[in-house]
């Protein structure tokens, strides 16, 4: 009984991991199988006919995969840089400066966390259309420049930075911007890593907004590109489609694994200390 109790958490976690990982495994499996085996329900990792080469070559050659990836990098980096540039000073001000209305502003930030992008899609689309900015990188990035999630995350982390160090810095002659970027953010690098992972993964995988504002295939980020790809193939070649999906998922996996330790430190330390 005691052994079962010790094992129980592991069993629950393992079954959770199984549910989460299965689609990825299935994607990978499909990407190396031949079309004849696609609808085989077996989870056996070695296909009868090993078709990985053909599937991946097809995914890479049929559509401009490199172009999609580049678009994804441009959009994700653009969003991330502007988000950090705007959210860090805002979070610093909310966490460490005294000014009237601070509590109200912080409440508004938290309230804004509850507004989904879908609710804003129509006005944003109309606005971008009136400005004739549709079908541009800017249209894909602009709605995400101000991230209340980033402000909230950095606020939680900055709050625990010792006030006395900030005061010592003021007496030494640091400007508020130097304190904000050079000291406070520097003390919260795990949060920056965590937020970067959240932001890049979310926008790399985003299909919804690019699909609304971009019709030019040359501007498409990877998920939208995959959509064009499946249209071209009229959904027949699942193996190649999954090979494409595997290709666009890989960078995110690498990105997460590199930042994993900081990412975990970042999301666990933003809680109450």
């Amino acid at each position, binding site marked *: 009984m005691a052994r079962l109790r010790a094992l129980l958490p592991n069993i629950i976690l393992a079954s959770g991991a199984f549910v989460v990982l299965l689609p990825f495994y299935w994607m990978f499996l499909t990407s190396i199988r031949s079309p004849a085996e696609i609808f085989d329900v077996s989870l056996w990792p070695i296909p009868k006919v090993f078709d990985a080469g053909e599937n991946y070559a097809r995914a890479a050659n049929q559509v401009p995969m490199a172009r999609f990836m580049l678009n994804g990098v441009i959009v994700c980096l653009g969003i991330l840089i502007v988000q950090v540039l705007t959210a860090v000073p805002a979070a610093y001000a909310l966490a460490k400066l005294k000014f009237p209305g601070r509590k109200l502003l912080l409440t508004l930030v938290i309230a804004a966390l509850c507004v989904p992008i879908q609710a804003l899609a129509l006005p944003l689309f109309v606005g971008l259309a009136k400005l004739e900015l549709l079908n541009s990188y800017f249209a894909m990035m602009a709605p995400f420049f101000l991230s209340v999630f980033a402000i909230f995350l950095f606020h939680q982390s900055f709050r625990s930075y010792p006030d006395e160090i900030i*005061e010592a810095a003021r*007496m030494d002659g640091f400007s508020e911007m130097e304190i904000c970027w050079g000291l406070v953010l520097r003390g919260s690098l795990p949060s920056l890593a965590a937020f970067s992972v959240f932001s890049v993964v979310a926008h790399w995988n985003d299909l919804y907004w690019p699909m609304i504002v971009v019709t030019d295939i040359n501007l498409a980020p990877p998920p939208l590109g995959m959509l064009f790809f499946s249209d071209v193939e009229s959904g027949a070649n699942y193996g190649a489609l999954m090979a494409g999906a595997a290709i666009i998922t890989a960078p995110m996996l690498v990105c997460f694994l590199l930042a994993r330790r900081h990412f975990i430190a970042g999301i666990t330390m933003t809680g109450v200390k």
Partner: protein
Amino acid sequence: MTPQSLDLTGIGKGFGADDVLKTIDLSVRPGEFLSLVGMSGCGKSTLLRIIAGLERPDRGQVSIGGTDVTETDPSDRNLAMVFQSYALYPHMSVRQNIATPLRMRRLSLGARMPLIGRMMSSANALQEIEASVMQAAETLQIAHLLDRKPAQLSGGQRQRVALARALVRSPAAFLMDEPLSNLDAKLRAHMRDELAALHRRLGATFIYVTHDQVEAMTMSDRIALMSEGRIEQLGTPDELYGQPATLTVARFIGTPSINLLPVEIGAEGVVRLFGQDLPIAAPVRHAGPATLGLRAEDLTITSEGLPLRVFRTEMHGADRFVHGHLLADETQHLTLRLSAGEQLAADADGIIHISFAAGRAHLFGADEARIATSLTERAAA
């Protein structure tokens, strides 16, 4: 930099409805070691932060060396502050920590930037800074720690780095906010000596905030004792101990605490303790209830006098503290200080008799202010 005077006139500060500081006037002389001492919440830290410029006063004026700096930014006041938590920059080495105040003053923004800074700063300025850092580090005997990070240092070492960072820029005055309170007792006593020695050597103006009266008494030229946002008394340690201006000062200064007994000042000015006339007289206008303050060392054991039932003695090495209740009023607790060799001539019931030299007694009126007394011819009954 020659030491500067520092003047506060009519400083007031409130947070919400409470007045944390009520009209503070204080002049610190150049080169003086002045302590601001008081219970927590008395406003001493707020006052220091107002001097530093980290907090703005609601009213009043701060001047340094005769110049009004009330509206000046903290960094332009040329003051150095040592914080209770030391407030070292965690990502910088000890060397960089000490150099920072100089880098911020002497190097341009571009020269302070990482990477490109090296190219933009003149070799001369960097060398001067390095030399000043070495000198400060040697003064505080931390030259061997220069390449460590603050996290790798002990509390005492961090304290020294914080001091070095303060003194490297030769400020107009040093502000210290309970700098020793995070150290253990032994190290604290040691650092007390070092701070006093540092003050003698630099001859700089020190303003030192503490809640520990021992620190204030041992290091200061003058002490400003604060209570509830006011300065109760400003004076030398001797004055505060020997002539406390108010009951609050008398209670705060001295270990063990002063003994306080209720007395009555009669219409003719005579002071009565439990119905007995004492050989001291007070001005008649203070007639009414009053408090008599007696230091533990001013009480002596005599064959007659106030009977006291001893309930505990405490050995302190050279001294022995004797605690007892007055037989006349069991709620009154008295403490005597005896030298360790002195006999405690208690009878079988643990009762001793005590008396005191009337000239050493302190008298406080109903308003808690000190009352000047004179000895009378009349002997105690």
